[in-house]
């Protein structure tokens, strides 16, 4: 029987005009991943403001919004009343000190000559020290503001950046009067301080772990990242977990609050038996893949082996296929003309995983030849014969 089938099959193969691509079932690595909505965020600590430090009027900004700045770069100039008050006070104190110094010298000479009382000298000394300490305190104050105490003190105060980053925003309009605690501009620290906040459906609560790899799709490119933190709080509105990932490579022109797509892998990549996606066909409520019978026929010389193989095949092959085959054989017996057998088996497969090109399946052995494209034609043939065509 099997030999007869083989004969018919070979004939059919050579008669049949359509060429279908054949591939082998191979192992493929499947990464389990989910594509989720994400948002670019920045941690609060990554932002800093530049304070006015002195009260006064902002006369000039030396930077623009979006400009990258370095530590120590001049940022703004403030015309400060406070500063001029301090400098005139310092001048006054210095004059007083000079007077006190002179008086003290005179008094000490007089005391040495016994002309003055010690009490008087001491009092003078105390007064001088007082002025001195007042000077010191102003000096410290000015020093803190970074104003040199030597020479004349200008009342235009320049503010310098304390850290590097990008000017995110200028907070105070030009020429407005500010007090010392007012933030003038905010600086966003560059580079790695961006995080990707992904919203992950709760179904994956057990799969998503810190350290899992992921990809960020931004501006038509993808960038590697890894999960660095899972926020303890659920996004209440969307009922999704919030997962923070750090980027592993620099991303150009990233904007905070941008909504992006990202892919998070869940679990380690695993190897599965896979076929090309184009091989799949939906047949009688099952996903099926067609395999070539041709392969077996060529080595069908050893009948025993062949028969075994056949049995094995049939064991796996779907019930319906038996029907189809039986039927066409019936035809073959009754009608004398040569019946064309379809040289392909129908295999029901279970889809386990899929990526862009491949699907991981269950139901086929490794290295089985399968029809990797145009499976439509084979399905049509099969349907046609099962619908009762006798061929002509």
């Amino acid at each position, binding site marked *: 029987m099997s030999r007869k089938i083989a004969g018919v099959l070979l004939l059919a193969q050579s008669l049949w005009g359509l060429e279908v691509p054949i591939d082998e079932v191979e192992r493929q690595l499947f990464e389990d991943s989910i*594509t989720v909505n994400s948002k670019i965020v920045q941690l609060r600590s990554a932002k800093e403001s530049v304070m006015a430090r002195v009260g006064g009027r902002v006369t000039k900004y030396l930077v623009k919004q979006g400009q990258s700045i370095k530590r120590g770069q001049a940022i703004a100039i403030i015309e400060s009343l406070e500063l001029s008050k301090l400098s005139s006070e310092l001048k006054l104190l210095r004059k007083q000190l000079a007077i006190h110094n002179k008086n003290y010298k005179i008094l000490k000479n007089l005391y040495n000559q016994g002309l003055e009382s010690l009490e008087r000298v001491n009092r003078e000394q105390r007064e001088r020290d007082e002025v001195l300490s007042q000077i010191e305190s102003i000096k410290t104050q000015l020093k803190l503001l970074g104003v040199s105490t030597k020479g004349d003190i200008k009342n235009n105060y320049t503010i310098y950046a304390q850290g590097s980053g990008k000017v995110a925003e200028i907070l105070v309009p030009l020429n407005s009067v500010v007090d010392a605690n007012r933030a003038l501009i905010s600086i966003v620290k560059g580079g790695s301080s961006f995080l990707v906040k992904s919203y992950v459906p709760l179904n994956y609560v057990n799969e998503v772990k810190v350290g899992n790899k992921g990809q960020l799709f931004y501006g038509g490119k993808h960038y590697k990242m890894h999960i660095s933190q899972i926020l303890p709080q659920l996004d209440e509105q969307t009922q999704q977990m919030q997962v923070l990932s750090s980027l592993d490579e620099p991303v150009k022109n990233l904007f905070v609050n941008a909504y992006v797509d990202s892919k998070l892998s869940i679990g380690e990549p695993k190897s599965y038996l896979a076929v090309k996606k184009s091989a799949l066909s*939906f047949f*009688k409520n099952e996903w099926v893949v067609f395999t070539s019978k041709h392969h077996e026929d060529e080595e069908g010389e050893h009948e025993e082996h062949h028969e075994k193989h056949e049995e094995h095949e049939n064991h796996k092959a779907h019930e319906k296929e038996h029907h189809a085959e039986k039927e066409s054989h019936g035809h073959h017996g009754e009608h004398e003309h040569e019946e064309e057998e379809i040289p392909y088996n129908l295999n029901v497969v279970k889809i386990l995983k899929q990526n862009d090109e491949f699907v991981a399946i269950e139901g086929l052995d490794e290295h089985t030849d399968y029809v990797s494209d145009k499976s439509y034609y084979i399905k049509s*043939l099969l349907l046609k014969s099962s619908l009762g065509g006798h061929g002509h």
Partner: protein
Amino acid sequence: MLNKIIDLSLRYKLLVIVLFIVLSFLGYRSYQNVPIDAFPDITPKQVVIYTESAGNSAEDIEKLITYPIESALSGMAGVKSIMSNSIFGLSYVSVFFEDSYDIYFLRQQVSERILSVDIPNGWGKPTLGPNTTGLGQVFWYELKDTTGKKSLQEIRELQEFFVKPMFKSVSGVEEVISWGGYEKQYEVVIEPRKLQAKGVTYSDIVDALESSNISAGGQYLEFNREQYQIRGVGFYQTLDDIRSTVVKSFGGRAILIGDVATVKQGVAPRFGAISIDGNESVMGMVLQRTGTDANRVVEGLKKKMEQVNASLPSGVEIKLIYDRTTMTKKAVNTISSALQSGIVLVAIVLFLFLFELRSAFIVIVSLPLSLLIAFGLMEYFGLSANLMSLSGLAIAVGMIVDGTIVMVENAYRHLNENPTANRTTLILNSAKEVATPTTFAILIIVAVFIPLLSLDGLAGKLYSPMALNIVFVMLGSLLVALVLVPVLALALLQPKKSQENIVMRAIKWVYLPFLKGALYLPKIVLLTVMIAFAFLAYQLTLQGREFMPTLNEESIMFRVIAPPGTALSQSVETAQNLEKHILKNYSSNVESVLSMIGRSEKGETAQPNYMEVLLTLKPNIEDLPALTKRITKDVTHTFEHVRFVPTQPIAMRIEELLEGVQSELAIKIYGEEQKVMAKISKQIQEALEGLEGLEEVEVEPQLGQANIIIRPNYQALARYGVKVSEIMQFIRNGIGEESITQKIEGVKRFGIVAKLKDAREEIEELKNINLRTEKGSIVRLRDVCNIEVRQGASFIKRQNLNRYMVLGIETEGRDVASLVAEANERIKEKVKMPSGYYIEWAGDFKNMQEATQKLMIIIPVTIMLILLLLYTAFNSMKKALLVLMNVPFGLMGGIVALIISEIYLSVSAIIGFLAIFAIAILNGIVLVSFIDELREKYPEKALKEVIIEATLLRLRPVLMTAFTTLFGILPLLYATGVGAEIQYPLSVVIVGGIISSTLLTLLVLPVGYLVVYRR
């Protein structure tokens, strides 16, 4: 009464001649005016209701649309049956009515009933189909850009908004159907992610679109004694207008549609395509209104076509693909050339027999006159000149002259016998002598064909025009024979020395010994004939049967069927490969190949897996059936993944219309569950395996359409606060691209859809589509719905509120009746029907069955009618029966001819047998009445001698009537060309019948007379 007519007409000779000149003039006018058609309108009275329900599945459409419509219509008066087909996106209900109702009344009734049908909002609106018959597609054209610069979508737009309205203005055009190309639509392609970013929902966008594309009128104001009208013009003008539609605004800032979506021009999802010679194209199909003349409509269209062509943009042109009238003209040509050669042959025969110019002239003149009178009657009764009605005339050509022959012959004889007598009295008497038998003979022919008018169904529609026309022309000939012929005889006939022409003498010399021999052994002759008849009658019951021979339309068409669920793009690819293959391999025979894939927008129930391929052939194909077979075999082999069914344009429409079945023979399985029906059909298929003559059993695959089923998960919906209506709107508008509003460009309208990006790219992507719900939740479709891929119904057919499935059967080399009988037995034996499920045969067989049943009543009725007429004529039952005895004589020849030419017993052949009835009886009457006459004249002579003398004297008229009838119909037998094959069985039977009937009348009837009246 008859005598009075003859008296009167001979008295007012001039008046009679003027009357006939007027009649022939009127007849000629009618001849030119009578509408021409290939076929009588055989399609049943039918009103179609279709409901477009874009994107919905067959099962839902059946439940929500088809069933309510069906049940609303089922109680209507005059409804014969209701058939329906629910397919993806369309519900199609077809109501068949009794033929006696007026179509406009029926349409009115149906539309009133439809109003009461409750169809859920958004599921479509039922519309009446165009008022046309099933054969209404009279004109197909291609709209083509020869420069190749215009896109398919632009050409479709031209077709829709320019060509179609132009053609629709032609009188008699009911509808123009556009097919192929792409329809433009404007697409707002939404990126769900952006919705999330901007805090906008899908319904916000829908609302924004709906409420922005509005115009309004603001009445008028008066200013300086003038009126100024106020218009609010809010319709979208440009794509930018759509882009800047505000979805939501926050103070001064606003979110525009352009912020969350790309707006562009796109194409609407389509369900069909047209491919010609390997390239996609656009075509139009013009439907003719019921009751209009196809020829005139096409003429008007052709005239309009020039005008349209002239005003189309340069490079774009209309190319004619198919024109019903070419076929019609060919068919009418076939039959009218048969008619013409019939007339010529009859004239020659007449001349040979009469050998006298004047009498031959009178007889020949009666031919066209009777025909013209028939044409006058045809126009009066609204009969069209078609294959069937004209062949009625062709059949009758030989019989028309019979009455005249008898009249002229008698007058001639009398004139020769008494050359000196008063001509007027002589002719008057001779005419009166034969008036009664002539009238009865003609009435008998009429009587034979009148009962045919009561045939109903397809057979009735096909053959009643033929019967009617025979009746018309016979009545015309009666009028001519009784009124005009005596006048002409009086005017023209000259007495001549009685001299027998050579032909007659030779015939008599051969005939006489046979007659004498027969009369010598009367009983043996009668017995032999009886036995022979019995034998042949038995043979006839063994003869195969079929309903109707296939009409050769001189074209090849294929129905190509791929598995259900095949994508349109795949079908287009198959079609184009097929077209290229045929053009490459059959370039000497095939001019062009057209594939009509899926369905056009109106009233078609085909799916993308179905296409019709029409081959335009080059002229002068020698053997079309062989070519069809060759191509069929080749393509079936080359394109193995699809099924090919060869057919022809008209034949296909007829098959489709009559039973909702597209094959000649079919089993309909009725029931509820499609799966059970599929199982039964499988069992039947197995049971019929190996049945002799069974070529193919084709299960109509109703199942097998893969569905992606999105079922809301209520728990999940509750969790996210999503409403089912939101999901469904998403599916309908966002995925299904149902248009939300329309962009109006002049008179053109194009849908504006809000679709989700990549929603229909892949199953996985569909599952992962994001929804932003009203509450702001973002969920993927798969999170709130259970999505699975399932196999479902591809279409659901119903008849009279029951679902059914069709098992098409192709037969080869065996008559249908016996095949059905055997198949029925097998099915009864092997297939177990669950309760509630039953089968019925359909297709040609059913028509045959119905026609046969009817004929079983008609034939006895006809015989009774004839007997009654005969009895009235002879006033003797004996003679009436004697004449009736002639009928078997004729039948015998018919049967022999049928068996020899190996044709099946079809309705056409049965009608041939009926015609033989008439001819045989005519022969009998002529002979019997003359024997009577002679017996009266010479009562002293021996009966045998009287019989011999009478027979010899009547030999000429008998042979003449026989030969004229024979030669009148002979051209039909040898006719080739479109339509010839339909009349072939009929002519075979008649020819055989005439020969046997004439021979046996001349030999056996005298014997019968002898036996009956011998003392």
